[in-house]
């Protein structure tokens, strides 16, 4: 029979013992936001062990979409809930304008020289590229040539679209607008043309639901990035990627240090390991299918380009111009597409 005193002593000893491994092994940690899904799996499976092995730093991941990271950091008001962001160009500009990042010193990255010029600036480092184009099911529809085809038969009745909530959705709708006379700051032609064929469109969905809708045959054509295509293909889905005749869209995903982080040194080491050859090479392979930016890493075969230099000819967008207009575009999309 245990007395209350002996039980308390035992519990204290157990509690103290549980702290021992932390005292003995942990030399530091860093909390990094990452996108849910493939990104989280990849960073947990590849980046975290690599960082632990090289720098003895524990990586804690917070799976959050880019917009959620910005919302959390804004709500935290000076007490960042994580040490590093991972963002697409639109939220990156929002973060810079909102003063959510610490200044970034590229000299602290040992892999800086392995990245093409312009990949590091005062606010962060590019760690992956994304290429957006058209995905289609080759067993159901012929390959479309470009954005204009999406709104004509036979593609339109099998088309799945999303709105302006995501980077890939926004840039795709801008490109559709361009072929109908619009521009980076004028998406009205896209909405006008979409409205004409809206009754035929197979699905107007949330971005996160699009891969499932494609997989289930709800739609057979959609705009998306090469990573989603490669991931679905690896699951046995009939899907191919088309680079539109007006050019595929390219943008970069960047890492940033949260304003006021107390783990800046560890966050730099985290950024450095993500940009390094070993991690970039591993992330390029299935099931992760990232597009690397490290010059020492070869590009995978399924990509529409042979080298990173080729990406300079791809369509790029100025998010400083797009961001202020996006709220209005979302409102317009809601009203034009609503049943």
């Amino acid at each position, binding site marked *: 029979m245990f007395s209350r005193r002996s039980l308390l002593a035992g519990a204290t000893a157990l509690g103290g013992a549980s702290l021992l491994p932390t005292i003995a092994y942990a030399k530091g940690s860093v909390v990094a936001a990452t996108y849910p899904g493939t990104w989280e799996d990849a960073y947990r499976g590849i980046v975290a062990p690599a960082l632990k092995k090289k720098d003895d730093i524990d990586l804690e991941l917070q799976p959050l979409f880019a917009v959620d990271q910005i919302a959390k950091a804004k709500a935290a008001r000076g007490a960042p809930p994580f040490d590093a962001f991972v963002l697409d160009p639109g939220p990156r500009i929002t973060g810079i304008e909102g003063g959510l990042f610490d200044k970034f010193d590229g000299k602290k990255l040992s892999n800086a020289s392995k990245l093409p010029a312009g990949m590091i600036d005062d606010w962060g480092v590019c760690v992956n590229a994304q290429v957006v184009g058209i995905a289609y099911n080759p067993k159901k529809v012929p390959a479309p040539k470009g954005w204009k085809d999406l709104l004509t038969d036979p593609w339109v009745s099998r088309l799945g679209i*999303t709105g302006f909530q995501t980077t890939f959705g926004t840039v795709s709708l801008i490109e559709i607008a361009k072929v109908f006379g619009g521009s980076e700051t004028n998406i009205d032609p896209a909405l006008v043309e979409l409205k004409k064929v809206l009754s035929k469109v197979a699905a*107007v*969905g*949330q971005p996160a639901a699009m891969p499932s809708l494609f997989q289930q045959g*709800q739609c057979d054509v959609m705009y998306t990035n090469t990573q989603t295509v490669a991931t679905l293909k690896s699951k046995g889905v009939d899907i191919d990627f088309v680079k539109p005749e007006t050019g595929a869209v390219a943008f970069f995903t960047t890492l940033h240090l949260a304003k006021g982080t107390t783990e800046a040194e560890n966050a730099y080491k985290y950024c450095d390991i993500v940009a390094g050859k070993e991690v970039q090479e591993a992330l390029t392979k299935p099931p992760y299918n990232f597009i690397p930016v490290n010059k020492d890493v070869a590009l995978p075969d399924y990509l529409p380009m042979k080298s990173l230099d080729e990406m300079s000819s791809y369509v790029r967008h100025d998010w400083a111009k797009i961001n202020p207009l996006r709220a209005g575009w979302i409102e317009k999309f809601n009203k034009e597409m609503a049943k």
Partner: protein
Amino acid sequence: MTSATAAFPETGGGRSGTFLKFAEWQLALPLALAFASIFLAPLLMLVGVSFFNDDKITELGFAQWVKFLGDPFSYKVVADTMLLGVKTMAATVLIGYPLALVYLDATPRLQKVLIFIIVMPLLLSVVVRTFAWIVVLGHEGVINQLFLSLGLISEPSRLLQTELGLVISLTQIEMPLMLLPLISVMSRLDPNMRDASAALGASRWRTLFTVIVPLSMPGLVAGCLLVFASSTTAFISQTVIGGVRLIYLPLLIWQQSLVVFNWPLAAVASLTLLVSVLSVVSALSYLGRRSSGYMHG
């Protein structure tokens, strides 16, 4: 009578009565504090944020209220959201009530099986349940394949991303919230009531509508209340199954708060949703109280 008052029988006022009230107040204090900090304080902040003109929350004013209430599209979204709740509620009643009657007449063993089936959807994540409905309702989904193979349709029907598909899926997802309070109330009904009604010459239908339905009204109202509140705020189901052409208030709130970071407008939409749902819930609660009065004379 609460457990606290049961432990200290009421003596009709005086010092003992005061002590009882004080003890009850103390018992409720932790919960009251928790509610104040995690519910009331954020709610007050939400009200405060809605009275800012700009998304940087620097200038006080009514601009966002004027914008929201001055846009006819907002009224359409509010009406569609409430209508979705009413349709889901009606469908769960139509399917749930007969199921509760079956439960009532089932053997104890069958009742256990039925309860397991009823509670099962609650054991699954809402995300899993919602994505399962994509497989069922999709272009090449179970329903379309079945109807095609039976020759009932010549080409797949569009069920996903329609209001009908959304109501069907929400009916299944919200069904436990209707059935559990309903079964709880109906199980307590005296079986002699039905026998007495039959002995007095009432048909089965008359017994159902004049005895069982009125007596089960508190459970029915509680179920309706839960289903309505849950289905009008079911963001994941609404957006994944309904798509983005069916626009309900939760989608609007999400877009404004997390995509364009216009928190004042998101706060206005959130408060509109809160007031709209509370209005219907209050009306249902009033009905529940009325029916309770009917039950007890």
